[in-house]
């Protein structure tokens, strides 16, 4: 490190006269109640983790209620209604409000530190996601206060969940609350994709990325594609409940199985979305305790990517007993077994790593061994369930309850508790207790097996799931009693972990720098977390920089040489890299603390609550208010055009106009989500067409002229935006507004003869058209904002990043318009008749 890098403010252009705040001041977290405005990934990550932990404890308490009810036959501890609410909320909280958010919390906290970034690339989006998660979770949970807790199971099968069979608000609490909370997942997905691809330390090519980055990258893509089917399903179901659109009603040409397809199109990837981050944490922690790099990194990466793809082809194995044709059964059965191979590769890579050296049996390692033991067993019963005849016996019996808890507790909770022991020193600067950790592990491990191993037998002896009570003497009595006692032992283990987690804050041993001797970059700074990441971002030349570059641990952390030292411009900045090579190509300006995400979250929350309360005017007003907040959010000055000296990596542009810039990558990620939402709707249309072949009569009601006009306008829009992406032009913006509105209006107009209430297909087509029209509206609003900014004189000629992003967005919108027009015109063309 040279003195020059410290003293010289690397500025080009006029040197500003006023004193800039120091690096520590720029990155300081606001104090007191203003901390709510913090958008730092450390704060947001910890919010996710702590909130997720609270939901975990609540959901775990509900599980104990379930087990207590089942301890003896014909028990009356809970009545059937309460029991149904309790098991529904147990599943819902665990899956939606604990597992995914807490793993996202770890990812948001750890990724920038591991990758060499100063923050997530869209901190406000992350903060907004957290508020959505918190408010959505509170809405779901508050249903208990109104005695309207959802009681239809976490899978909410229709028609049981329709208005006819579930009156009142219970299902609405679930649909609205969970969908709201899911906003956090999809925003996190976009953020994680862009952060991993665009903000890695100089030199960190994809092949030098810590393995956790790969796991999270695949997970984020899976969330982007996997969550939309459920979001669409929930919206359709809520629309059926409130407006009466008959998507799932067989009397109107709908099909209850459509819900199951949409649900499991989400639900199966969901399992891997929960497993992969946890496995990524294992693959990060285990090498630390062996003091050797992960064995066969390339194999593991290939396995994780493969798993991501395969996971989308397995959903129907949750539906083997719904009467699928034999050919589908065989295909899905074979496909389901194939996932064993990437899983096996990962397991053997971990086993291989253990053979590289002498492993230390610290508490995190103990939990990793527990993970391997339990998860391998759960995986094997999973393969058994892929065998159709066996599935017909085991499905919806306690065998499946056993299997899924082996996979989820083994595959996620054990690694998670291990991760708490491993990374807590980073959160708080203090170590958790080895002694209490061992107690927690052995109680959890033994309690787990007593509870769930026996359930395999209970299930094969014929006990179905989700029954509030059972008659005595059928062979289930003793097994259930033991399972319940085991669950108390498991809970005692969790309790000890929680006590340790709270205790360590005050009496834990202070952790030094890199207390486990790990090799990844998050341990660069001493354990008492300073609240900011890198005074200068070091060049990374290997996957375990702290092992391979001893200089990093020799010097004081803040003196280490690197790019972008300090905050010479008084702004939060980080290095933007090329997605593949990791070479720096821009400086990314990051936002400072702001209340905007909180206000946006509150706006959506008010809209959701008003929707539940039936106050549709309030809901509409809140939606408009939220839109205004988003517009204010978007109305920020652009920094494109500035260039600064980053130090070792030379002069770099700020927020470069490039296809590989973080905003464009994020647009692509967002379009992936939009594409998946649209594909889910098209799936619904085609599915209903298949079960109800009078498709042409319903679709044929659409006006082909207007539909074709919408397609032509859509194509024109795409061409206009593509041609105009290199220039800032107010007229082009205005033209975009007009064409977008015209395309949306033409598409809506083409549907005026279709009665959405008359048939499931009509309803689904209408919703799909409205969905596409909404995207035309978004494009119009976006163009209007762009034009207004230019009129306000805020945009200089080289600031064409919005144009670039809009061009990509317009292409997808145009494609959706064309596909929609084809669907609507096809009956006229005689193609589908």
């Amino acid at each position, binding site marked *: 490190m040279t003195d020059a890098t410290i003293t010289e403010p690397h500025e080009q252009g006029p040197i500003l006269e006023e004193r800039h705040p120091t690096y520590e001041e720029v990155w300081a977290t606001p104090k007191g109640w203003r901390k709510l405005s913090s958008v730092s990934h450390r704060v947001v990550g910890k919010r996710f983790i702590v909130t997720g932990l609270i939901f975990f404890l609540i959901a775990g308490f509900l599980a104990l209620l379930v087990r207590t009810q089942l301890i003896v036959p014909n028990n009356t501890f809970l009545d059937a209604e309460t029991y149904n609410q309790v098991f529904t909320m147990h599943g819902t909280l665990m899956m939606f409000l604990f597992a995914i958010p807490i793993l996202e919390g770890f990812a948001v906290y750890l990724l920038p530190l591991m990758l060499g970034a100063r923050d997530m690339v869209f901190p406000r989006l992350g903060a907004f996601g957290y508020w959505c998660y918190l408010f959505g979770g509170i809405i779901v949970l508050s249903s208990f206060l109104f005695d309207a807790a959802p009681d239809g199971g976490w899978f909410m099968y229709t028609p049981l969940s329709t208005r006819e069979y579930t009156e009142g608000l219970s299902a609405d609490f679930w649909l609205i609350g969970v969908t709201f909370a899911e906003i956090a997942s999809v925003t996190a997905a976009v953020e994680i994709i862009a952060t991993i691809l665009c903000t890695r330390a100089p030199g960190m090519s994809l092949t030098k990325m810590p393995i956790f980055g790969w796991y999270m990258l695949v997970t984020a893509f899976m969330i982007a594609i996997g969550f939309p089917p459920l979001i669409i399903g929930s919206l359709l179901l809520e629309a059926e409940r409130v407006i009466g659109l008959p998507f799932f009603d067989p009397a109107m040409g709908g099909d209850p199985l459509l819900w199951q397809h949409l649900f499991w199109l989400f639900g199966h990837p969901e399992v891997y979305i929960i497993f992969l981050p946890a496995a990524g944490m294992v693959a990060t922690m285990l090498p630390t305790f062996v003091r050797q790099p992960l064995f066969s990194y390339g194999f593991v990466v290939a396995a994780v990517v493969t798993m991501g793809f395969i996971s989308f082809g397995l959903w129907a194995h949750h539906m083997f007993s719904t009467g699928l044709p034999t050919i589908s059964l065989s295909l899905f059965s074979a496909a389901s077994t194939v996932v064993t191979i990437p899983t096996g590769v990962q397991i*053997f890579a971990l086993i291989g790593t253990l053979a*590289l050296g002498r492993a230390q049996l610290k508490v995190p390692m103990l939990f990793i061994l527990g993970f391997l033991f339990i998860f391998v067993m759960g995986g094997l019963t999973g393969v058994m369930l892929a065998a159709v005849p066996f599935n017909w*016996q085991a499905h919806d019996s306690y065998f499946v309850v056993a299997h899924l808890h082996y996979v989820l507790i083994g595959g996620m909770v054990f690694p998670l508790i291990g991760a708490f022991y491993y990374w807590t020193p980073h959160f708080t600067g203090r170590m958790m207790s080895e002694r209490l950790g061992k107690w927690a592990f052995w109680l959890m491990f033994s309690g787990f097996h007593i509870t769930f191993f026996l359930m395999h037998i209970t299930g094969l002896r014929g006990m179905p799931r*989700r029954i*509030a009570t059972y008659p005595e003497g059928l062979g289930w009595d003793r097994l259930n009693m033991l399972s319940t006692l085991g669950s108390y032992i498991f809970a005692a283990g969790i309790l000890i972990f929680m006590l340790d987690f709270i205790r360590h804050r005050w009496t834990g041993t202070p952790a030094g720098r890199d207390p486990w001797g790990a090799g990844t970059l998050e341990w660069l700074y001493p354990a008492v977390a300073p609240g900011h990441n890198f005074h200068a971002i070091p060049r990374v030349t290997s996957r375990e920089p702290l092992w391979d570059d001893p200089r990093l641990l020799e010097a004081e952390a803040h003196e280490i040489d690197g790019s972008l030292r300090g905050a010479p411009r008084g702004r939060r900045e980080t290095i933007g890299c090329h997605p593949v090579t990791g070479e720096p190509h821009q400086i990314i300006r990051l936002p400072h603390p702001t209340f905007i995400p909180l206000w946006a979250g509150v706006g959506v929350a008010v809209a959701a609550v008003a929707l539940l309360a039936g106050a549709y005017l309030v809901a509409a007003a809140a939606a408009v208010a939220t839109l205004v907040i988003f517009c204010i959010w978007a109305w920020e000055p652009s920094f494109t055009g500035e260039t600064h000296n980053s130090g070792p990596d030379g002069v770099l542009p700020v927020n470069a106009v490039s296809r590989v810039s973080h905003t464009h990558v994020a647009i692509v990620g967002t379009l992936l989500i939009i594409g998946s939402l649209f594909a889910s709707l098209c799936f619904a249309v085609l599915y209903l067409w298949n079960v109800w072949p009078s498709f042409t009569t319903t679709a044929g009601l659409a006006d082909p002229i207007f539909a074709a006009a919408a397609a032509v306008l859509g194509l024109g829009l795409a061409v206009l935006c593509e041609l105009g992406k290199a220039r800032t032009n107010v007229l082009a913006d205005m033209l975009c507004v007009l064409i977008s509105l015209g395309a949306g209006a033409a598409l809506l107009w083409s549907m005026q003869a279709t009665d959405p209430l008359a048939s499931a297909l009509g309803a689904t087509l209408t919703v799909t058209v409205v969905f596409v029209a909404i995207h035309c509206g978004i494009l119009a609003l976006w163009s209007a904002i762009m034009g207004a900014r230019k009129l306000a004189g805020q945009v200089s000629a080289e600031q064409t990043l919005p144009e670039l992003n809009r061009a990509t967005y317009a292409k997808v919108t145009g494609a959706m318009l064309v596909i929609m027009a084809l669907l609507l015109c096809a009956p006229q063309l005689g193609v589908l008749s």
Partner: protein
Amino acid sequence: MIDEESTLGQFGSQSALDAAGLGAELTLTLTTALHVAGALIFLSVMGALAWAWFRTTGARTWWIWAGGVAIPAGALVILVVGSTLTLAAIRAGGENATIIDVRGYQFWWDVTYDPTGDPVRDGNEIFLPLGEPVTFRLTSEDVIHSFWIPSISGKMDMIPGRVNELTVTANELGRFRGQCAEFCGLSHPLMAFEVVVVTPEEFRAFVADLRNEARDPDTIALRQGRDVFMNAGCAACHAIRGEAEGGVLGPDLSRVGARASLGAGMWPMNVGNLAGWIADVQDMKPGANMPSYNHLTGPELRAVAHYLDSLK
């Protein structure tokens, strides 16, 4: 001729491990093979883990090819072939099967014998001929249910708007218990049924006998019971052949007294339980579509319960 003791409290009457039908037997063989293979694989992986734990001299890439790719792939091929052959064997031979329609309702089962010829209804108890294939045509009139007799065969969902077929062959005489396996609402745990496997001759005699009109009440007390049944409006939902035709919303009661259990496989059938059921159905089975007839007087309840118990 038929053991009238219900399956309630009978260990193993609802167990996939006590197979008494073709599907369950074949599946049990598959289950055993899967568990033995699974246990061996589990022990091998844990063995490899323990060995690697103590080894410090490095790993080899072929471990991953072997343990992660080759061995799983080989095992999967065997599994897929075995499971497909089992599936084919279970599905074979349903061409000349006897057809029985079963409709799921919250929370009971409507059974129709001979639906393609001269249909005749019964409920919550299903007779099967020993050794002969029977095809169930399964559907639901409200929410999704799942039809599962673990001892005889795997399960099949009952979905409104669809008809799923499930062919089974019972290979053991006796009584078995089935239960709804898809969560269907408040009293989902109280939706079970009895399965009675009899000889083919007895089966045909049973169906023929089912067509006969219910026995006329032959004592004053029973006639009073019938009058209570008629006056209280029970016939709006419940049919009794020869007495009250047309009610389809509740189980057919023409031979209710002959069933071994009451309330869809949940309580032993006797006069006391019948009276309690009629007076307190919402207490015994919350969410059922039948209201509690707690306005009936004690003597009325006794009479109607006796009358129903006499319908055999």
